[in-house]
């Protein structure tokens, strides 16, 4: 796969509903696996994706989509998610102190902000294996 650039990008658009989050996790896990992440790191990544995606869609989902972008970078994986909801911006998303604590433990960087299309998150999981 030499023709795949070192900073390859993958995009995924899913309905903003909890049952589709497995696809978001699987995509992240698949890319992380390609990059040689360990089992522990892949697990961390999936927890982080869940935590952030749930903060966008809530427990029962919202009408609309989440667009996820994954960047494979030299030193790790960057994931961004943007919620595009039909029911408006709603309340501005916030991470509970517990979510903050969880994210701090499982990824190297995370943030949740309001973008022009809707709430969005970004996480960075660096590759620390070996």
């Amino acid at each position, binding site marked *: 796969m030499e023709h795949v650039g070192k900073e390859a990008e993958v995009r995924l658009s899913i309905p903003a509903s909890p049952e589709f989050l497995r696809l978001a996790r699987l995509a992240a896990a698949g890319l992380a696996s390609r990059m040689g992440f360990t*089992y*522990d790191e892949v697990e961390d990544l999936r927890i982080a994706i869940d935590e952030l995606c*749930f903060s966008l869609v809530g427990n029962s989902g919202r009408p609309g989509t989440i667009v996820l972008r994954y960047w494979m970078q030299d030193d790790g994986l960057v994931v961004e998610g943007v919620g595009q909801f039909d029911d408006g911006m709603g309340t501005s998303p916030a991470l509970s102190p*517990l979510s903050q604590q969880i994210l701090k433990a499982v990824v190297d960087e995370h943030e949740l902000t309001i973008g022009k299309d809707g709430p969005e998150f970004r996480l960075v999981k660096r590759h620390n294996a070996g």
Partner: protein
Amino acid sequence: MSMSEDERDELRRKFEAYAESRDPALRDQLVTAHLGLAEYLARRFANRGEPLDDLVQVASVGLLKAVDRFDPDRGLEFSTYATPTIVGELKRHFRDKGWAVRVPRRVQELHLRLGKVVSSLSQDVGRSPTIAEIAERAGASEEEVLEAMEAGRAYRFASLDAPGSAGDDENQSLASQLGEDDPLMAGIEHRVALSPLIAELPRREQLILHLRFFEGLTQSEIAGRLGISQMHVSRLLARSLAKLRGSADDT
């Protein structure tokens, strides 16, 4: 489930009165009188990976529907009428969950093997193995390993909490029998300040949350420390987080 003739007559009168009046107090009495039936049917669906408490709730919803729809004039026993309604509710519950739970058999089998593969491999390489290493050892593709890891999340959440062979008590599961010193629980006030819901989790789940997210231990380290497989740690974490999320809505 057997009741005396008198009780039967009494219930029949109540059903007739309820059919007329739709009195909520009567409805409560009728539902309460048949909770045993709901629980009995719920138990028959236990061991399919759903906590019994949840199943009893689902069955109770079915019971409510049956009480509301039952027509005493048609001469059927209530239990005869209610059973298919309650079973239908339970089946629907499993079917609705089915989207997440349906996992190809090959992946299910791999999932069951994965725990052992990961722990033996971790020992061999002295760190958490990569997915490629796990796939090679398991004789599967990386995609299959990832699917199998994902399956652990949706599939049989309850397996760890399944009652041990000793009996019916839901607290007597394997994981709850792990001893652990109290000092580890010391930070509880701090964690509970972050979310009071943490205090409602089973103690071992609190402990694992604490070790992972507050002490910063990896899943493999926690597995080693508690003497359970990493897959179990992973499942319990996913489960605790799902619970914390689930109940956050209720508050």
